[in-house]
């Protein structure tokens, strides 16, 4: 597949929220796998769907964007900060403050209550804690998000492990959005749901993301979700994977 931006309808004046350039990354322990991202940008307010089969470097790409791993070369500017230049602790703080992350599955700490899981990010970022409790106490904000995502009140104090997969994904969305982080990263959040629930989940996700004014980047292997996004791109067109021996 070649480079194929399927559609781009964003107004041109929207500024970039994330820009990667000249990024080269290799896992320290796995020297046969290297990822190169020459140029990637994400505009504020965009809802980007990245299409990529497993093994296409999705996790590595998202890890770089969220600052969980750091590249050997290149720059990753998020909200004007080059997170590739930050040390590990500062990257962790930056991620806690500006990113909300939803995994494919197993998003919640199973022993904790639903509310504790939603409130968890606020322990790691004072800024998010401030934003979450700006209008109402943080716990009420969590309840508001849970309500909006269709989690019944009786489940708020239940242990996360007792929830269905669909409910867990919605709680994960509430956690990603609490305290209004600017960037929401979703790594195949619907792949463990059936078709009807996929659509319902995306509807809810889009509405809370829009309400928060956040930017969404979602990875999936399912192109049929494309029409709901403002842009769709193949991961291969952004990130080049090099395997085999390291070149001189």
């Amino acid at each position: 597949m070649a480079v194929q931006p399927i559609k781009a309808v964003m107004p041109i004046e929207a500024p970039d929220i994330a820009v990667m350039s000249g990024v080269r990354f290799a896992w320290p322990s796995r020297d046969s796998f290297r990822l190169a991202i020459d140029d990637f940008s994400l505009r504020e307010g965009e809802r980007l769907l990245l299409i990529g089969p497993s093994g296409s470097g999705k996790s590595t790409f998202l890890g770089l964007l969220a600052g969980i791993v750091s590249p050997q070369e290149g720059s990753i500017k998020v909200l004007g900060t080059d997170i590739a230049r930050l040390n590990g602790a500062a990257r962790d703080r930056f991620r806690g403050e500006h990113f909300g992350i939803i995994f494919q599955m197993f998003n919640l700490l199973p022993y904790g209550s639903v509310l504790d899981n939603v409130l968890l990010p606020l322990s790691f970022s004072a800024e998010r804690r401030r934003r979450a409790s700006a209008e109402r106490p943080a716990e009420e904000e969590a309840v508001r998000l849970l309500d909006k995502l269709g989690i019944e009140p009786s489940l708020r104090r239940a242990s996360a492990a007792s929830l269905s997969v669909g409910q867990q994904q919605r709680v994960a969305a509430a956690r990603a959005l609490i305290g209004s982080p600017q960037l929401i990263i979703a790594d195949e959040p619907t792949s463990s749901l059936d078709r009807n629930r996929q659509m319902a989940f995306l509807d809810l996700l889009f509405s809370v993301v829009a309400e928060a004014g956040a930017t969404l980047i979602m990875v999936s292997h399912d192109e049929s979700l494309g029409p709901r996004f403002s842009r769709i791109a193949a991961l291969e067109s952004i990130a080049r994977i090099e395997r085999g021996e390291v070149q001189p």
Partner: protein
Amino acid sequence: MIVLRLAWQSLANRWLTATLTIVAIAVSIMLLLGVEKVRTGARQSFADTISGTDLIVGARSGALNLLLYSVFRIGNATNNITWQTYQEIAKAPDIDWIVPISLGDSHHGFRVMGTTPEYFQRYHYRRTNALTFSEGKPFSDLFDAVLGADVAERLGYKLGDKIVVAHGLGSTGFLEHDDKPFQVSGILAKTGTPVDRTVHVSLEAIEAIHVDWQSGARIPGQSVSAEEVRHMNLQPKAITAALIGLKSKLAIFGLQRAINDYRAEPLSAILPGSTLQELWSLVGTAETALAAVSAMVVVTALLGMVTMILTTLNERRREMAILRSVGARPATILGLLVAEASLLIVLGVALGIVLLYAGLIGLQPYIDRAYGLYIGIEPLKTGEWIDLAGVIAAGVIAGLLPALRAYRLSLADGMTVRT
């Protein structure tokens, strides 16, 4: 703090393994401290085997040998002291009291000791405890015997029972003084000293049962009945050793030198206290082995804890990826795991201390009665607190091992949530 609450809930979810780990640590701590208590108690009980006696005199031999046969009833005297020499020593002006003892016979493996009734007043143990009778009274008749507590208990004797003394020290000697049986006149209370394992008779009785013996065998054709012997002169010709109390402690070394230099007969005089110390330094190596074993048990318990945390680590990689995704630093994850290990070890140590004192309070009277070992119930000493601090420090360091592994995993996993 939500993070700590979640960490606690994670641990609470594994409550069974966590509890077992804490109990394993607690038992090992109880053992470590218990061995220390028993060590102290044993050393004290040992040093308190004989007290109030300033010198022990016997035929010339090493100090340890003299102590072993005269106090512990172990081994044999190299030689005897003649009655004449004994009388000479007894005349020394510094002497407050002197009690002769005569050994050589046995009863079912227990030593028979000839002495004077004064022995029961003079022999002290645990500083100031005198011997007391649980039943009966000291010997008054020639063929009366006073039994130590263990002898009476093991052989099931009561007051008035007849016992036969065997010649020599074998437990089933063919040579028995069966023509002159003894009657139990008294049974001593338990002391935890070798007195418990001794049959006490009068010096004259020792003489009486050997009247028709020579060189370890009955003189053929010459038999003296128990009645006849009462009318004979039973003044002993020799004794094995003598316990001496002095009027003034200052005289101890002077008299000791005088006895060691005694011309007529080669003699040795020892100070029981310092010889006991010397003996303890020999048998005390066992206590070091015991302490080493209990230390190894603590190490085993800590290894168990590390294993328990390590095995849960894989299922907790998800937990770590989630924490990382919401902004937790790897150092936070390291801290949580170390905190978990620290909590387990501190709870284990605390429970261990509780178990130790519960055990001591419950078992102390029994141990005292059964083994004559008095273990004092005292607060932990500084040295023991230092040991415990060392165990906790070792536990925290051991806890770093799985924590560092979790740290490495959380770096390597990156965004991937593994299950």
